[in-house]
């Protein structure tokens, strides 16, 4: 994932809500020092200065904004992004519910009307040769068809940013056999049709697949199952 930095073309400004904890300040320090971002730290500024001192981080590399509490700090961070003073909003030591309340505020928040809110995460494993993008491990408990389609589109959009023109998506299940016992089966079959018709974006989709068929080439050979998701062609499709 270190390689992501090389794809960045310009420096962005990050507004951080209640940015007082050591992990946030440590990570922001690394990002500012590497020339990736500028950061506005909103919170209890004397506390922020104290944390900087403990970590031997130069507080002058950040812009500090005083705020009374975590709720006000969250809405201020969102406001800075809303008015274009910052490009990215980040949660510091504030609770997720309070932070997201500011993000999702109908008038002053950052929601796109009608859009699905979802979470995509990238994972790098020391013993696996692919970067895995997992969706959705955090926001939508039981996605319906429309939400699954949105999740797929977001993940495809993210992988495109990594320079892959035609990403592969495995729709994960307990087995490759569709079954009425598994509620995902109907959605998955609909999604594969949509993908073939180009409705999900430029991607190769297959499912249901279990984790082995999706991620392990040897299993494909053993089971004799043919899936376009896993195979030698993967990296050849990438432009990086």
């Amino acid at each position, binding site marked *: 994932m270190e390689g992501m930095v090389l794809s960045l073309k310009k420096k962005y400004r990050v507004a951080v809500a209640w940015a007082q904890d050591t992990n946030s300040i440590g990570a922001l320090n690394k990002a500012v020092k590497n020339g990736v971002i500028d950061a506005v730290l909103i919170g209890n500024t004397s506390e922020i200065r104290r944390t900087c001192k403990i970590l031997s981080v130069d507080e002058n590399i950040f812009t500090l904004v005083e705020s009374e509490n975590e709720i006000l700090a969250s809405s201020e961070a969102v406001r800075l992004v809303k008015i274009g003073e910052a*490009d990215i909003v980040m949660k510091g030591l504030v609770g997720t519910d309070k932070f997201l309340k500011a993000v999702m505020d109908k008038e002053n928040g950052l929601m796109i009307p009608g859009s699905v809110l979802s979470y995509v995460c990238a994972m790098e494993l020391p013993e696996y040769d692919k970067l895995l993008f997992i*969706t959705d491990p955090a926001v939508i408990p039981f996605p319906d068809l429309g939400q699954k389609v949105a999740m797929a589109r977001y993940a495809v959009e993210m992988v495109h940013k990594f320079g892959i023109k035609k990403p592969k998506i495995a729709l994960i299940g307990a087995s490759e056999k569709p079954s009425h016992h598994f509620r995902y089966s109907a959605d998955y079959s609909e999604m594969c049709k949509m993908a073939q018709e180009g409705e999900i974006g430029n991607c190769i989709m297959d499912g249901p697949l279990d984790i082995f068929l999706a991620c392990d080439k040897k299993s494909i050979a053993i089971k004799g199952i043919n899936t376009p998701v896993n195979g030698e062609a993967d*990296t050849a499709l990438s432009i990086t």
Partner: protein
Amino acid sequence: MGRLILLFPSLESSNPFYKGLVLFAKGEIAGLIMGTEKPVVVMSRSESEISKYFCIVLSCLMVK
């Protein structure tokens, strides 16, 4: 390095999957909320410094 998207049928399956990999297979993660006007970085408060750093870099990639 190749890339592969795994779409899970529910949070009940995806969440233990990724946490299992972080704990037992030393996975490094970077995640992002999608569907907003601008990137929103939300991590668990206990997330490591390096994971938070990767999240910040990922969010920069996603600025429209």
